[in-house]
């Protein structure tokens, strides 16, 4: 299942500049696509507009060829799992209850949990290494533990597309590598993966395609080698950078340099 945007624009009331400005892109079926860009470049807005929770001001987004806004939300939730950035934990649900919510789009309002639901939940907990946390209340989890539980919830949806907004931001090296490695493996098996991240080198190493956003527009898109070029990255991030090929992993490597004299920082 692929995601696509044609001349997609979207904005928030009270702001003059649109958060997304005529974005055209494609997230091909079974690809691992990373979305990069500075703070405020429109990455999270792109996720909302691509999946139809936010109405575009112009253009359109499609999921599997159908307009994202035309999808029945429950049907869409059976195909697309999302780990977004903002989520409240006002009330103490357990980690298992939070993961079980990934089954809700399959269950409807009244149907009880079936053996298949329980198997899917167990498997999702195991894959994200949170089985031991199942009975814990989410209010007692660390940031990294909670993040893995939320990824497990998205997996419990049994999605064909997985979209994640900064999922690795609060994870340590081993959990970060585990999660991104899993995303890579799932993409190889045909799942469409969309990863929004600030971790340039991780994206360069694991993603098939990179979309670089700048002030709501696509500054560049394509394979990491084509997009992560020094002059493009420097102009988008407004910071001196050095880009070379990492000799160990064989992928582009971005190294931020010291600022030139006279620049703040």
């Amino acid at each position, binding site marked *: 299942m692929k995601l696509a945007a044609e001349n997609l624009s979207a904005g928030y009331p009270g702001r003059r500049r649109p958060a997304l400005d005529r974005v055209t892109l494609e997230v091909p079926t079974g690809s691992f696509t990373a979305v990069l860009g500075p703070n405020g470049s429109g990455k999270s807005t792109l996720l*909302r507009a691509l*999946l139809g*929770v936010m109405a575009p001001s112009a253009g359109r987004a499609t999921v599997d060829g159908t307009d994202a806004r035309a999808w029945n*939300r*429950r*049907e*869409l*939730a*059976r195909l*697309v799992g*999302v780990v*977004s950035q*903002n*989520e*409240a*934990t*006002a*009330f*103490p*649900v*357990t980690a298992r*209850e*939070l993961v079980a*919510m*990934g089954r*809700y*789009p399959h*269950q*409807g*309002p*009244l149907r*009880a*949990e079936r053996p298949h639901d*329980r198997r899917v939940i167990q498997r999702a907990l195991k894959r994200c290494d949170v089985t031991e946390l199942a009975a814990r209340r989410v209010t007692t989890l660390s940031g990294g533990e909670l993040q893995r539980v939320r990824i497990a919830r998205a997996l419990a*949806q049994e999605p064909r597309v997985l979209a994640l907004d900064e999922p690795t931001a609060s994870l340590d090296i081993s959990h970060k590598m585990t999660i991104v490695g899993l995303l890579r493996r799932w993409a190889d098996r045909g799942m469409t993966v969309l990863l929004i991240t600030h971790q340039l080198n991780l994206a360069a190493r694991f993603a098939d395609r990179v979309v670089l956003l700048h002030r709501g527009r696509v500054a560049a898109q394509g394979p990491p080698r084509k997009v992560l070029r020094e002059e493009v990255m420097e102009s988008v991030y407004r910071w001196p950078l050095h880009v070379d090929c990492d000799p160990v992993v064989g992928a582009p490597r971005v190294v931020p340099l010291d600022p030139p004299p006279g620049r703040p920082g």
Partner: protein
Amino acid sequence: MSPAGGRQWTAVLLLGVAVVASVLTAVRFGSVPLSSAQVLGALSGTGDPIHREIVVQLRLPRALLAVVVGGGLALAGATLQALLRNPLAEPYILGISGGAAAAAVLTLGLGLVAAGSWVLPAAAFVGALVAIALVFGVATAVDHSLDVRVLLLAGVVVGTFFTGVIALVLALSDAPAVRGAMLWMMGSLGGAQWRTVLVGATYTLPAGLVLIALARSLDLMAIGEETASFLGTDVERVKRTALGVASLVTAAGVGMAGVIGFVGLIVPHAVRLSVGSAHRKLLPLSFLAGAVFLVLADLIARVALAPTEIPIGVVTAFVGVPLFLLLLRRSHQ
């Protein structure tokens, strides 16, 4: 059936029995104490006709009104806490009590209550509806998607306006009217009749079914509207339906029994501490627990300082707060 599901049904069953037991207990006590045998006789129509009159016409409708109002307030409180993602939310948070109280105080101050016993509850109900309409109107005018933060602010603002109305009417009223108004505002189930029970049940029971059908959506709304949407919820529809239903239940409760505090705030939290936050368990158990709590609170209100009846709001505060603190301490140990 999973173990968790089994526990849930056990809890529903136990609390259901507790509701019946508390009603039968409440029916026994009062100015004329009755034995269980006398109550059963009265209920089956074989006992003393005076006992029959006391049980069937006075105490039973009152206890059943406590079931409806207590259950309804707890249900509304649990729902609003989830929708507003705010553990401090309670049924009156959106200005409903202010509107109802202002209308009630006006009818008392203007002496309109003389027209019949139905005037005060009807006025309070209408006042509550006016407050709801104002709050939703203000919130929608500011933000079309009914942002819950805007809704909360609108509730506070509308509530404050009605507090001003109440203060003005009280300042212009004579002492007996002021006393009557104060007592009404602290809540009482003294106006219970079979008719009120019927009206209350007509509002509360279908509302309960609607909210329980929305239980999974409420689980999702409690962790955020965007996440709820990504997990397949029609956020705007759920928000409007659940807020509307919870508000109607609260308005009906305020109309029949005045403003009874603490039930809608504390009962859902107490239930959460015991069985967790999943609304499929939380909503039905909150209804039952709220019912038991208010039946017993009303019993205490009637008999503690008999023949004087204390406002039920006093009892819910005096009994509810220590009980809740005890639960809170136990859950953190």
